[in-house]
């Protein structure tokens, strides 16, 4: 009975991951920028992996840790619906992959006009002056767990289905506005 209930629950993570679009969830309060190690594990893992995936010309981390007065925030693509970077892309290099639902880039078409860098409201697209292309996270959607998530030992990044994503973000926003009155958020 309990098993059945769990299976049908909308936010069952296993089912969600199997059926729905995959997203990367952030828990910035858990991120400490890997300060004791001297480098951010996710950034390093991503950089190494992207070099392998797209070739050495298109290497460079797609995730970045930004710091402000002791707080860390992983800057990564939020995979917008109707993404501004897709609208802005003049060569048509960036597009919505209809199967995975992710905004991905065809780097062969990218000419480095920086229109997407100028449009991303999260600042998640970076100008790579050397290779002359704009790098953006593609969610590693075609290859299981993304390397950044694997590398993060602090639990600040998590691979998650879109139902869980929206559920958790909704709780977060509600909690931010009505803080003390919402207590149903599970501890993770």
């Amino acid at each position, binding site marked *: 009975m309990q098993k059945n209930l769990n299976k049908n629950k909308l936010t069952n993570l296993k089912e969600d991951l199997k059926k729905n679009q995959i997203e990367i969830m*952030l*828990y*910035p*309060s*858990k991120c400490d920028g890997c300060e004791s190690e001297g480098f951010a594990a996710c950034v390093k893992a991503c950089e190494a992996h992207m070099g392998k995936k797209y070739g050495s010309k298109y290497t460079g981390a797609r995730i970045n840790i*930004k710091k*402000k007065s002791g*707080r860390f*925030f992983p*800057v990564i693509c*939020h995979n*917008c*619906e*109707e993404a*501004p970077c*897709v*609208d*802005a*892309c*003049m*060569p*048509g290099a960036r597009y919505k992959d209809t199967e995975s639902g992710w905004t991905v880039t065809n780097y*062969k*078409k990218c*000419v*480095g*006009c*920086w*229109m*997407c*860098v*100028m*449009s*991303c*409201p*999260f*600042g998640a*697209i*970076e*100008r790579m*002056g050397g290779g*002359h292309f704009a790098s953006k996270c593609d969610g590693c959607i075609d290859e299981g767990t993304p390397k950044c998530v694997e590398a993060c030992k602090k639990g600040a990044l998590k691979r998650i289905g879109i139902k869980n994503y929206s559920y*958790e*973000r909704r*709780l*977060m*926003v509600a*909690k*931010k*506005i*009505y*803080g*003390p009155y919402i207590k149903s*958020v599970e*501890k*993770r």
Partner: protein
Amino acid sequence: MKYVIIGNSYAGLSCADAIRRFDKSGDVVIISDENYRAYARPLISYYLEGKTTDETIWYKEDDYYEKNNFKVMLGKKVVSVDTVSKKVVLEDGAKLDYDKLFIGPGGTPFVPPTEGFNPDSPMMGTFTKFDDAKKMEKAAKFAKNKEAIVVGGGLIGLKASEGLRALGLHVTIVELLPRVLGLALDEISGNITSKRLNENGIDTATGETVTKINLDESGNPESVILKSGKVLKADIVVVGVGVRPNVGFLEGSGIKIDRGIIVDKTMMTSVKDVYAGGDAAVIYDILNKRPNIIAIVPLACEEGRVAGTNMAGVYREYPGGMGLNSVEIYGLPIVTIGLTNPANESQKVYMFQDENVYRKLVYDGEVLVGAILLGDIAGSGILSAVIRQGLKCFKYKDEFLNGNIYSFVIDSEFEIYNINEGYAVRGDFEDLPEFSRTNWR
């Protein structure tokens, strides 16, 4: 339902996509007066430089039209639109019925009256179409003295000169305004840009115009005479002053035109069932607070999408747009957003400059209304989102100037994401900007 789309570029295709999203079965006909399938038009200068090729200049994938079941009519020019009997008349006399029509004709290059200019000459022309780029590629081979004159120091002119320079010509930009990119940049950034151009073999003659083009016996340019009387050698003359909305064919259709096509919030023109968008449409400029033509790619896509959604029967409003642009000139990235030169005294300017980087912010009271970033453009998207939403962000002024633009996102997003630690103090969300994926548009 029969949808007809005039214009096979950013606005038109974005409109077609939006229609297909809500109407899987309707007939969609896309008409273009060019013989190519959709290509990335602003990239024709990169084509001359070899950064984009015959394989990668296409805007959509190869099977785009078949996959989405769009019928495409290439090389057909629309001569008039009959809005009473709902027909589009083509140059060859054929008539197309429509239930809903989208007009995204873009712009035609504007050529100031210049003695001797003849666009049919193989060594002279404008620079907005793929054919123009191919013509210049050929012309560069025949240039005897390897000298080119580009009239106009705006985006078209700069990119055209960069392309011609890559073909081995010595280029001189002739610009009427006192600096290149005169409308978007200020004096300091204009000078930095000019210096970068000069270092790379492109001369700039600012505050000048071409009064006469001297032709040789075969009708090709030999030299140009400037307003100041100076004579410059010229094998190739390119006019890239700007574009005007291509709305001549709409005369007599009853569609209201004032410079561009007038549209309402749903992107519908003054005639029912006829929609418009792109470089030819007059939309609401949220910064200048008046209707304006803003001819940039991101807005064309947005307008097309809103129009297409409404055409498919789903109501959607367009809130308006603002001018912003980004360009790279010989390794120097330039981003200009919104009102870069203060329009009145209430607007205050803050600047930061060092060796490689220049940043300028224009504040109207507490609200950021414009920015120029030169050299370092990381996080410029955050600024454009802030400007577009009209957020109060005066307290971030110093951080923006020093390049810590990300601090804004950290502050606004961190609290929302913060699930484990403490509660956000009640009330502080009022001065925190609403800044999430649902809020962007």
